[in-house]
């Protein structure tokens, strides 16, 4: 009994150390992060996440985007992410301080998305990619997400965000393909992925 309680006590202490160091400490210390305010321009970094983008976390999580896409840029010494132009600098904790949810990811079956909103600014590009990835890149292994779109009859003017599709993908005459609210939220989120501001703790490496 004594020996057993010693064993269990030891497990609690040793295990508790990792719990404290890797769960509780980050929980407490990251809660106090403050945004960086540029002394000259008064610009706040990172900027606030737009409300529309916050609706996108759930869609990103639900469809397992994280199974193939990461969202962090490693330092030059840790990998080739910066050379690959996935970001000008490494990402640090403050980059994520305003995100309601963080999807770092641990696999890259597809490209990193840390700065996808910097390289692609057109919602149409994202809609076409999600509807049929082959429209953007004929070789890609990414699957389509057509349930995020709706085939509807055109009433009056065509919808502003209707997909521009040709050939086999084109909707039947008098109809149009429009993104659902879920697709709009997801694309707003993807467009918001822009870590192109400067943070003093992560200077961009010199070329």
């Amino acid at each position: 009994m004594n020996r057993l309680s010693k064993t269990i006590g030891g497990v609690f202490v040793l295990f508790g150390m990792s719990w404290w160091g890797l769960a509780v400490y980050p929980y407490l210390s990251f809660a106090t992060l403050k945004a960086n305010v540029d002394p000259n321009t008064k610009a706040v970094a990172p900027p606030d996440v737009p409300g529309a983008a916050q609706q996108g976390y759930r869609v990103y999580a639900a469809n397992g985007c994280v199974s193939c896409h990461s969202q962090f840029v490693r330092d030059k010494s840790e990998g080739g992410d910066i050379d690959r132009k996935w970001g000008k600098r490494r990402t640090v904790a403050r980059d994520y301080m305003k995100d309601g949810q963080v999807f770092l990811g641990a696999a890259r079956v597809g490209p990193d998305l840390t700065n996808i909103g910097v390289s692609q600014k057109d919602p149409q590009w994202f809609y076409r990619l999600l509807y049929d990835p082959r429209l953007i890149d004929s070789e890609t292994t990414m699957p389509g997400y057509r349930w995020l779109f709706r085939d509807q009859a055109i009433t009056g003017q065509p919808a502003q965000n209707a997909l521009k599709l040709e050939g086999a993908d084109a909707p039947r005459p008098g109809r149009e393909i429009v993104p659902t609210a879920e697709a709009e939220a997801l694309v707003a989120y993807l467009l918001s992925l822009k870590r192109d501001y400067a943070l003093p703790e992560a200077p961009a490496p010199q070329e």
Partner: protein
Amino acid sequence: MSVPNQTADLQLSRLVTGNGSVLRGPILLFFVSGLFWLLVAVALWLFSAFQVTDPFSPLVFPDVAWLTYGRVYPVAMDLLVYGWVSMIGVGAAIWILDSMAENPLPGGYLPLLAGIIWNLGLVFGVWGVLGGGSTGKEWLEFPIYAAFPIWLAEIIMAIWAVALVIGRRSKAGYISQAFLLTAFIAFAWAYGSANGFLQFFKVSGPAEPAIQWWYFGCLVSLWLTPLGVGMVYHFVPLLIGRPLYSAKLAAISFWGIVAFGGWTGIAQILGAPLPAWIQTVSVVANVLLVVPVLAFATNLHLTMKGSFDLIKPNLALRFLVTGGLVFGLASIWNAITTFRSINRILEFTWAITARTDLFLIGFMTLVCFGAIYYILPRLVGRSWRYTKLIQMHFWFSIVALGTLVFDLTIAGVMQGFGEMDPQVSFAAVIDLGKPFMLGYGLAAIFLGLSALLGLGAFLTVFVNPAWAPDSEEAPEPVINEEVSLA
């Protein structure tokens, strides 16, 4: 700190069906559900492997939300972990803890209750993730309404296990007891607090990855590892009729795994936006973890020395010993790929996936089947008739494991070196791994076949000849009848 003495494990060899009657229900429930979830997991894995290998495959359904890769693959992995290896591990742990306690069992309905709740949690989890309720956090995808039942079931099991050990009639302490209790306590703590932080308290963004990958380290090193190691430490000495070689090595393996295990997970996301010391500590922990794991594998090897002949006829032993030795290799490979110079190339690639698969399919799955092949005949009082089936199952498992790990590792290495060169477009990087990805599909087929063979072996036990506990013949699958296992 001391560790319980392991040698007495041996004296249990003939206690086999002692308390079996009360426990038969719960253990069978855990075993049958575990096998069921294995089949579901492997089917979904096969499905997702073809999806990711060939985007033009007819298995890609762009119109059907719940069949998309990002939902199917995580479900397959979660079922493999929380359905298959966890449930078999718990079933075997019930058997082991009970036979070591020598008690008429208190509260036999508790494990039964836990088994039912656990299964409900898994059903909700599959339903939730396929239906679009995933949390999007790897290995923690199950939404709260699925994670909570699983956690509750585990708490019930933890309370039952601790109560059983405290109230045990036999005051001897065993190394496998220590491992199994650790597993139950650590998983209840880790799964509860990870889900609590991420889904209930909604911690600030940057803390999420730290908690999530801390949990992964605990899941692998403090839940699955102690279950697997506990099974090997318990069954192998029983099967060869010899105590463990060294109590000291056993103590090193125990305290080492407990001390380093919790720190290992962060190494999955090196270069992440986390404090540098956290990442360094995690790399160091992964390297240090080799010491206890090799202490375990060496102990196993030295215990087996002179008895390796028995591996050939005794199939339960073969599964257990192979699994245990694969674990030693897996931990060395894990340490090597964690070094920053290598990790910077292989991180994010299929090679890292292969590293986890080597642990799950190599170590855990083999050991789980070994435990089933040992326990099941004693549980139902029948010995094996179709040993050829089990022999085939073993070889299919090895071929599946080899194909899977080899292919994914090569694909990952190609991918990793491609990614290092910014001149190579990312599409070309993915192309580099493609030829090997066909092997991934093949491996998934082998895995499916091996799971079916395992199921077949499991089912045939019920039509097998009866076995009496006092008969000289070993009830576990033994190929050559002449080999005696006195």
